[in-house]
């Protein structure tokens, strides 16, 4: 019998996994591993460690799924286990990047204006826009990789996964004020990095 994750309510999934239905657990893994991967790729740089930690995350989920009380979405609960597992790993290995985002740097209005004008050009010149986007994607990837891991994860959860503040708070355990402040600092750092490092001759 093929089981589709979206056909099952969280409560039903938990019940069936608790009753020893391993195929349902496999469905849960497949339906949440995308979100878990987003967190792990931002927090754990080493591929081998990611492989071990990903397995560790789901074994923890399996052991503790009886304790899940449906206070949030099951995927959010799984993501919180992934985040905490990665965070503990980083702390243990002393790999947490310091929060050294500089807010003093000012890219200057001329660069800002050129960047904004290129964005406005998207609608008028498609080939130019594609070229610009491709280069920008590379610079943005570099910029995100230079952020502290927690900031990069928050940016991904909010802007890529489009999770709400409540869901991100549930995953990370950060208070609302701290979460919003981290996101603000991370966005500002991305803007500064991109404006200062983008090939100026292309602007």
């Amino acid at each position: 019998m093929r089981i589709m994750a979206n056909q099952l309510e969280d409560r039903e999934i938990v019940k069936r996994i608790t009753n020893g239905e391993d195929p349902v657990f496999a469905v849960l893994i497949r339906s949440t591993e995308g979100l878990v991967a987003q967190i792990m790729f931002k927090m754990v740089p080493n591929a081998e460690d990611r492989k071990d930690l990903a397995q560790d995350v789901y074994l923890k989920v399996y052991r503790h799924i009886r304790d899940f009380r449906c206070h949030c979405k099951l995927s959010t609960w799984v993501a919180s286990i992934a985040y905490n597992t990665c965070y503990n790993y980083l702390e243990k290995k002393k790999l947490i990047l310091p929060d050294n985002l500089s807010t003093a740097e000012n890219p200057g209005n001329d660069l800002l204006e050129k960047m904004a004008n290129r964005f406005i050009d998207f609608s008028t010149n498609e080939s130019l826009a594609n070229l610009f986007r491709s280069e920008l994607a590379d610079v943005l990837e570099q910029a995100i990789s230079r952020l502290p891991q927690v900031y990069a994860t928050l940016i991904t959860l909010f802007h890529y996964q489009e999770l709400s503040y409540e869901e991100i708070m549930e995953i990370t355990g950060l208070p609302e004020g701290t979460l919003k402040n981290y996101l603000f600092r991370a966005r500002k750092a991305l803007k500064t990095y991109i404006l200062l490092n983008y090939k100026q001759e292309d602007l």
Partner: protein
Amino acid sequence: MSEAHLSEKEIQAFAIDQAHSPVHWTTHVNQCITCQHSVATYKLIFHEIKQQPAVAFDFDLAKLVVAQLPKPKAIGSSVLLMVLSWLTFLALSFGAVCYVLRGQFFNFIVTEPLINLLIVISASLLFLGLLLDVWMKFQEKIKVIDHIKLQH
């Protein structure tokens, strides 16, 4: 036009959710080139983050994890032995009592069938209750042991 530019925080909030921003922000941004550029830059960054390719594990995570899941536990041989011992003990005790009191017991069964039935039912219920209690205590102890194992 209001002279004061929007703060960086306000610019970000405006770029994220223009529709629900205060009217005076919109009025200012519509008339201020500097703030328009800032908003446009943030919108570009947010747009590009959404366009990033999805990351994925390059191995079959579900297969690896499911292979490591603990197999369902069969009832332990020690538990089975304990239950069988109890049943044997009870059967032997019952047999011994029946043998010693065989004359009176037979008369009792024949003469007082209703009382006999009540005794049998009460004894059976008592026995089942005790058995259930032992089983629940056993499960609780196993759970505590599993929990201790998890913490290590």
